[in-house]
């Protein structure tokens, strides 16, 4: 067996990220054949195999960052192995005199180490440390978690303590007696252990585990943030909420669901009905389909409805153009198409421009009511809550109906509450008395 270790790629480099295995466990590999790739600060490096044989064990998965000299895999030289195995210990006796006081013999890695020069031996360890070489990663974990390493039984090659051993110990620790009795972080493990010999390296950060993590905003996130604050600053937001009985729509949907799936390959949801109702109401109240530009009102003759689509780390509002020329089928088709292409980043730039009114369907995530932010330079946005079967009073009797809450955020600079509620009443009226064919 030959240990394959994370090589040292430079004096100041103490760890590397294993980015790709070029061989799978069980596969044969030739000596010097590329075995895996590592990444360190803008440099990708192919690492050749230190020996010929079968890749018998992979200890470090892709994407993990480990300290140098961490064993990442083992190679079984089986048949041809005898000679190689015999050569290993011999080679191991030969390396330049290591100043290491470590009693236990390092594993075969000395012979196995690829191109880079044998790393300087580990620093002498604090008294409490167990015998056997420790990887910088293990030292670091011990330091950060305040672990007395002599309490851990190593399961690695030659009884060495592996990362997994430390993790196992940590997992078990809360139940068992916590290692140090002293209250405040004691100086217990003096831990001078500079990771390898890094002369100019800054001292490692203090032992406390990080309480925060800093990550720059994505470009999309920055744009969303900018837009949201701009909108809040620009418009006088007011939100009005109406309760809508969707039972007629639910029936229509039930009736056509199977046919939609069979004929068009997509399901029929509530959303296109709501878009359609909004379009009818926008035609009646064109001020909600307008923009405000300085002291002018811009009335848009087209009704282009933006549909908010949630992405993994953001949000985009593709636009259904000429939405007033589409029936429920056409609207559903547009919604499905735009959402799919938004998620796969296939939208064309003009498909997110030119909206005159927006709809956001937070009900699909279970929200009852929301107060959406206007998509500038529009003046209103309709929020759609979840559709739930709810007991309601009709003609002094209790009935079970499909109920949905629709909220309209509007710009009070241009639109007054009376107009907003007239608009919503129209939307409600269309939905509650649904008669239009859907296809």
């Amino acid at each position, binding site marked *: 067996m030959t240990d394959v270790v994370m090589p040292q790629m430079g004096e100041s480099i103490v760890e590397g990220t294993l980015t790709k295995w070029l061989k799978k466990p069980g596969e044969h590999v030739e000596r010097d054949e590329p075995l895996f790739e590592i990444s360190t600060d*803008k440099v*990708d490096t192919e690492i050749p195999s230190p020996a010929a044989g079968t890749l018998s064990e992979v200890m470090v998965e892709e994407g993990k960052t480990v300290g140098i000299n961490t064993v990442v895999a083992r190679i079984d030289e089986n048949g041809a192995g005898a000679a190689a195995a015999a050569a290993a210990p011999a080679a191991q006796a030969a390396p330049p005199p290591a100043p290491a006081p470590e009693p236990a013999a390092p594993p075969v890695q000395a012979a196995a180490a690829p*191109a*880079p020069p044998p790393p300087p031996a580990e620093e002498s360890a604090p008294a409490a440390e167990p015998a056997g070489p420790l990887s910088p990663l293990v030292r670091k974990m011990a330091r950060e978690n305040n672990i007395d390493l002599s309490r851990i039984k190593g399961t690695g090659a030659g009884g060495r303590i592996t990362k997994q051993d430390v993790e196992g110990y940590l997992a078990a620790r809360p139940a068992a007696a916590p290692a140090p009795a002293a209250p405040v972080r004691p100086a217990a493990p003096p831990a001078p252990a500079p990771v390898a010999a890094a002369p100019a390296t800054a001292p490692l950060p203090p032992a406390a585990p990080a309480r925060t993590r800093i990550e720059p905003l994505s*470009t999309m996130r920055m744009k969303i943030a900018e837009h949201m604050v701009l909108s809040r600053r620009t418009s006088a937001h007011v939100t009005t909420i109406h309760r809508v009985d969707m039972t007629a729509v639910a029936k229509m949907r039930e009736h056509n669901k199977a046919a939609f799936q069979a004929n068009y390959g997509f399901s029929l949801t509530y959303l296109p009905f709501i878009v359609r109702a909004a379009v009818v109401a926008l035609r009646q109240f064109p001020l909600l389909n307008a923009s405000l530009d300085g002291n002018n009102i811009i009335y848009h003759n087209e009704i282009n409805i933006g549909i908010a689509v949630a992405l993994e780390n953001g949000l985009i509002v593709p636009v259904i153009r000429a939405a007033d020329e589409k029936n429920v089928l056409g609207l559903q088709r547009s919604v499905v198409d735009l959402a799919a292409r938004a998620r796969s980043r296939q939208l064309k730039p003009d498909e997110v421009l030119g909206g005159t009114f927006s709809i956001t369907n937070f009900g699909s995530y279970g929200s009852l009511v929301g107060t959406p932010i206007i998509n500038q330079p529009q003046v209103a946005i309709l929020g759609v809550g979840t559709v739930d079967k709810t007991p309601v009073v009709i003609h002094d009797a209790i009935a079970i109906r499909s109920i949905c809450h629709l909220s309209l955020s509007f710009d009070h600079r241009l639109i007054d509450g009376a107009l907003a509620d007239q608009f919503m009443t129209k939307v409600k009226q269309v939905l509650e008395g649904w008669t239009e064919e859907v296809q």
Partner: protein
Amino acid sequence: MRNCSVRELGRMDYASALELQRRLVAERQQGAIPDQLLLVEHPHVVTLGRNGHRENLLASDEILARAGVDFHPTDRGGDITYHGPGQLVGYPILDLREWKRDVAAYVRGLEQVLIDTLAAFGIAAGRIPKLTGVWVEGRKIAAIGVHIARWVTSHGFALNVSTDLSYFQYIVPCGLTKPVTSMAALGIRAGLEDVGYVLAGHFGRVFDCQMPVGAPAHSGARKRETL
């Protein structure tokens, strides 16, 4: 002192340059050729490093195609970047065993070459800790991404000389939301050949190798950068 050949390739598409690098890397690994410094200018192309994130590509394939920009995944370190006309791209093929077996020192060396080159044109550029590349007042002027196989380097650096910076809008360069700049944007008008000539000299000094002396390869009239 080691020798290092300088090959000025002029305008060459990314795939051809990649193919050439692969061939030279193999020859360098076998010791058949000395160290090389390739200097090239690419047509519009967006390249994505092996560990890059596709989401840092902000444009769809269609938009890129319409803008005449190729997209090319590749095997260097680093995230996403853009190459195009007006950018001096350098691909050193060095055997680091003959210099220093230290990839971090190599990257710092490339930065030094770029910093010294920019200084020769009166631009004070520097490093930002943990953000590989060369920066001028918080703006990135040169990007670095390297591949190493058996201590032989490939890929390298890209210095914005008179790059049309608007093409960077299609990507989040190197996954960082920091602005980019160019020598031209900083008021320095220089041709790629002249910058390459100065750069080769600093390259030889930083990496301890003998660069051929003489006039830049392109002696003809300076090409007009097309947009």
